[in-house]
């Protein structure tokens, strides 16, 4: 984790989304360091865990973690967003080793994650699907289709992580976790900066779809 801020800082020019990127940094690190069963060598293994970054805005933390874990060469961080760089301000799965989806337009990752999790279940795989969304991103109606469908179809190998930096324009009365719980998801609320709490939440057993709301300080 010590090198992540340094790697992060090598990607300049997207100050608009710097806060968005910084808000995911701790969860992403704990995921790749301690939770996900995937390495650069198993990135194509059908039984791997899949992590889908739905909140594609500000992917600097994501790229930094992928570099630190060896999925991509850290030397490519410096000229990110240039013509020849595989690293854009929104990730492209075709260009970035280890990226499970291309994202940027909000509200796409969670429905796709429902599909990958069902696909893993059909294949009898032990792999799990994790998807990261933002609280502002949850405004997109497609998420709410997927929240309902995941519960109805009992997609138990799916974990949605909501980074709650209170950026949703109109907020979530009653809390974000309640929105998932009412549809039948198991939920947890944690401090998104507390690595131990993140690890404990993301490794908790669940027999139905699971939403972990990771609270982050409000954006500046």
């Amino acid at each position, binding site marked *: 984790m010590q090198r992540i801020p340094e790697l992060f800082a090598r990607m300049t020019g997207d100050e608009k989304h710097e806060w968005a990127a910084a808000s995911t940094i701790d969860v992403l690190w704990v995921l790749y360091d301690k939770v996900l069963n995937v390495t650069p060598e198993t990135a194509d293994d059908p039984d791997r865990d899949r992590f889908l970054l739905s909140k594609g805005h500000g992917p600097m933390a994501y790229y930094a973690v992928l570099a630190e874990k060896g999925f991509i060469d850290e030397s490519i961080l410096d000229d990110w967003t240039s013509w020849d760089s595989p690293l854009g301000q929104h990730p*492209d799965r075709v260009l970035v080793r280890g990226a499970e989806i291309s994202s940027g337009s909000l*509200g796409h990752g969670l*429905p796709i994650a*429902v599909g990958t999790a069902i696909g893993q279940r059909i294949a009898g795989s032990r792999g799990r*699907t994790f998807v990261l969304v933002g609280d502002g991103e949850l405004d997109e109606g497609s998420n709410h289709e997927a929240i309902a469908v995941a519960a109805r179809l009992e997609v138990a190998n799916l974990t949605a992580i909501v980074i709650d930096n209170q950026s949703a324009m109109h907020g979530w009365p009653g809390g974000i976790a309640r929105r998932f719980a009412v549809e039948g998801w198991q939920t947890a609320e944690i401090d998104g900066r507390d690595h131990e709490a993140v690890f404990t939440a993301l490794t908790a057993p669940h027999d139905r779809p699971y939403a972990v709301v990771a609270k982050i300080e409000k954006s500046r």
Partner: protein
Amino acid sequence: MTTMRQAFVETVNGEIAADPRIAVVTAVISSNEFPQENERVVDVGIREQTMVGVASGLALAGLRPVVHSYAPFLVERPYEQIKLDIGHQDVGAVFVSIGGSYDDPVWGRTHQSPGDVALFDTLPGWTVHVPGHPDEVTPLLRQALKDDNRVYVRLSLHENTQAHPVGEGFTTVRHGKRGVVLAVGPMLDRVVKAVESENADVTVLYAATVRPFDADGLRTAVQNTDHADVMVVEPYLEGTSSHLVSETLQQIPHRIRSVGVKRHAELRNYGTAEDHDAAHDLDVVGLGSAVRSFFRG
């Protein structure tokens, strides 16, 4: 008499039992046609964005999803999901629509989708099939289910009296010297009747597959006529394939007449599909008039 929709259902249900790669994703419409006890049959309720998103996830997990609904809800409502969840993720899927442009016009504009093929045309890498007979559906689908590419199959209640070979480019139905008429899918019978009623000495090509566009087939047909005059008759938005005709014939002076569902106005009429055909000059009378005026002299 088997309809295109029945042929689709029978083909998919036969193949899903044999091929563990195939999955079906629906949003209520037609869901009861597929074996719900099969874990690879997924109905998401009336949630078309998630229907496409789930199909994308299944494809990412190695399955071959068949995504099905009524045309406006399959193509127009989740268009961004088709663009990003399928195309931009670089995964394959087989999209199968029913409803055509206005198969059931009593339901009004909400259930009409004449722009579906034009929308797919904005996205790279899609194969588009527009069968004109139920017997053409099964071979097109079987091939699509075997492949890994992105395929759109547009089914209709309207059909020709007989099936034609599919999958080998355009089929020459009639030879002539005055020019070429390209008839797409269920337009063929009406085109042939119109041509015969006008005694037009034209070649008639038939297309059940419009993307990829059989440029070689069209070019060869034009070379065998005395005039590089091409009329394209499509059962969806007029002019959808005109840019490809123009690209195909860019090296020679040529004329194009695009016939299809008119763009200029939204019809707020119900009635029958035949009423709408007449309003868009897609009946034999309207097509005959187009043939007469375009191939004059």
